[in-house]
């Protein structure tokens, strides 16, 4: 069945993610990603580490360590402001994980697309964000700009890489590999408007069940104009290493102030130089021929 050329995306419901990493495996299989050499991350059951050129899906394990008073704190994966520990609501008696299959958010206002100098990063007919590998020259400006740390540099290809939302599969009427492999349907693929309706219903059900911290991240326009890959979270975005609405800013915010600061300095510098050399000319000193 063909997939229409209209906005598609992922709705990742973290409340039913079991951390099986089937999405990571399926992504690597389909996209022929070798993966990084295994390493000890000392970070719960996470040996993937982060999203990068070899990991286009990454299951985060935010482990709740029980405190003496029965509350829980994270294992450091959920880095809070200024490095302070984030204290989420205890789950399952204070010993549990928050799991989230992280991925490129395919932002409506995409920082990577904004800064890319070669126009290698484009928005596709499915409203997803794609790095054209034949155009990218590996300048890495997009890596600097992506607020989610999604994009990585592939040393072998010399280009920046990230999730394509399985663009090749979409073109052939197939859903992305990760969504197809997810055994709990934590990762749902579909047309964006359909996903959003389903997400609203799921959030309402969870909140009715007492999960008051449950929230939708990227469902509305408060974060980068809305995310085509949005999430149902069981805690604050910061716990999952996601910038909250207050911190979700586009790189271009610094264009005007940056250039203005440069212009003012340029004028001040020119004045400083002119003051130093003009006096000699005015006094007529040093009449050495040019």
């Amino acid at each position: 069945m063909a997939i229409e050329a209209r906005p598609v995306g992922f709705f990742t419901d973290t409340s039913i993610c079991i951390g099986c990493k089937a999405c990571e495996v399926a992504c690597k299989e389909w996209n022929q990603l070798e993966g990084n050499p295994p390493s000890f991350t000392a970070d719960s059951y996470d040996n993937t580490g982060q999203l990068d050129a070899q990991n286009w899906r990454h299951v985060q394990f935010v482990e709740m360590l029980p405190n003496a008073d029965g509350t829980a704190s994270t294992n450091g994966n959920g880095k809070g402001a200024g490095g302070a520990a984030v204290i989420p609501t205890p789950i399952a008696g204070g010993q549990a994980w928050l799991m989230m299959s992280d991925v490129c958010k395919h932002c409506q206002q995409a920082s990577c697309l904004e800064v890319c100098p070669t126009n290698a990063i484009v928005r596709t007919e499915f409203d997803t964000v794609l790095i054209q590998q034949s155009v990218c020259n590996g300048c890495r400006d997009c890596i600097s700009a992506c607020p989610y740390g999604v994009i990585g540099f592939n040393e072998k290809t010399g280009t920046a890489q990230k999730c394509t939302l399985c663009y090749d599969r979409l073109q052939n009427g197939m859903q992305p590999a990760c969504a197809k492999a997810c055994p709990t349907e934590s990762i749902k693929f579909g047309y964006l408007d359909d996903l959003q309706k389903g997400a609203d219903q799921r959030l309402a059900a969870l909140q009715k069940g007492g999960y008051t911290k449950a929230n939708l991240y990227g469902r509305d326009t408060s974060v980068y104009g809305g995310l085509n890959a949005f999430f149902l979270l069981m805690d604050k975005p910061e716990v999952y290493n996601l910038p909250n609405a207050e911190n979700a800013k586009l790189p271009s915010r610094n264009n005007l102030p940056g250039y203005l600061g440069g212009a003012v300095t340029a004028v001040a510098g020119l004045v400083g130089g002119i003051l130093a050399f003009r006096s000699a000319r005015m006094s007529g000193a040093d009449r050495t021929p040019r």
Partner: protein
Amino acid sequence: MPPSEHFAAPPNWEWWILGYFVLGGISGGSYAIATIIRIFGAPADQRISRLGYIVSFIALIPCPIFLTLDLGQPLRFWHMLVDTSEGALAFKYWSPMSLGAWALVIYGLFSFVSFLGALAEGGTRALSPFAGFVRGTLGSIWGAIGTFFGLFIASYTGVLLAVSNQAVWSDAGWVLGGLFLASGLTGSAALLLALLRWREVEAGTAVRLEMADRNFAILEAILVVLFVVSVGIAGTIGKVLGIWIVLWILVILGLLAPFAVSRSDAARRWPPVAAPVLSLLGLLALRALIIFGPQS
């Protein structure tokens, strides 16, 4: 105000980029100083103007090479200028890297012609038509436009860092462009002062260049303070402290050096190139700690 939070991955811009930022700052700064002297300076000072144009072009030569070598696909360097997917020019005024690539091309032309003019004025007969060109009103206009692009090259690298989501870089967004420019001017004046030691110039010329150097250093010092305050408010100053304090010491010594030689009897006994070398090390250290600190 809560500290800003950053989850961006580092782009791993390292030594080639540091080299480009340093030489771009020196090139743009030298060109600006040369033009200031050309238009406003006394006849006796014109030797430094010529020297400035020569230094400016020589410093510029490695810049595109460094930038190309830093790319993952160096043979696609021209993708910065040509959009190969659309078959049109790749120009995005809102992307500092795109703007910088074009500015580098344009500034290269201005710097090259001014370089030829400086050689011609220095006695290279084969280039004599250029001497007439750079001396007249047209030459002043050429130099003024070139200065605009030169100062842009010295400055936009800071804006390039700021237009990101990296800690420190984006937190000091309004300061970095000016800071790199001021530092480029200070370093350029210091380099010209060092080079003057091997050329015969009027004593007054060196005094005026030293005065300009001090003016630039004051400007840079103000911007260093603003930078520290900005990242302090953002709560990310820790990224440029720790081991980076060694480089901060160099930055401070580099800023103090132009004043030390004019105020301190002990400093007057330093070797003549000591103060300029300290200033240049300060320029290098400032860029190194700003580039490497947030990425570490």
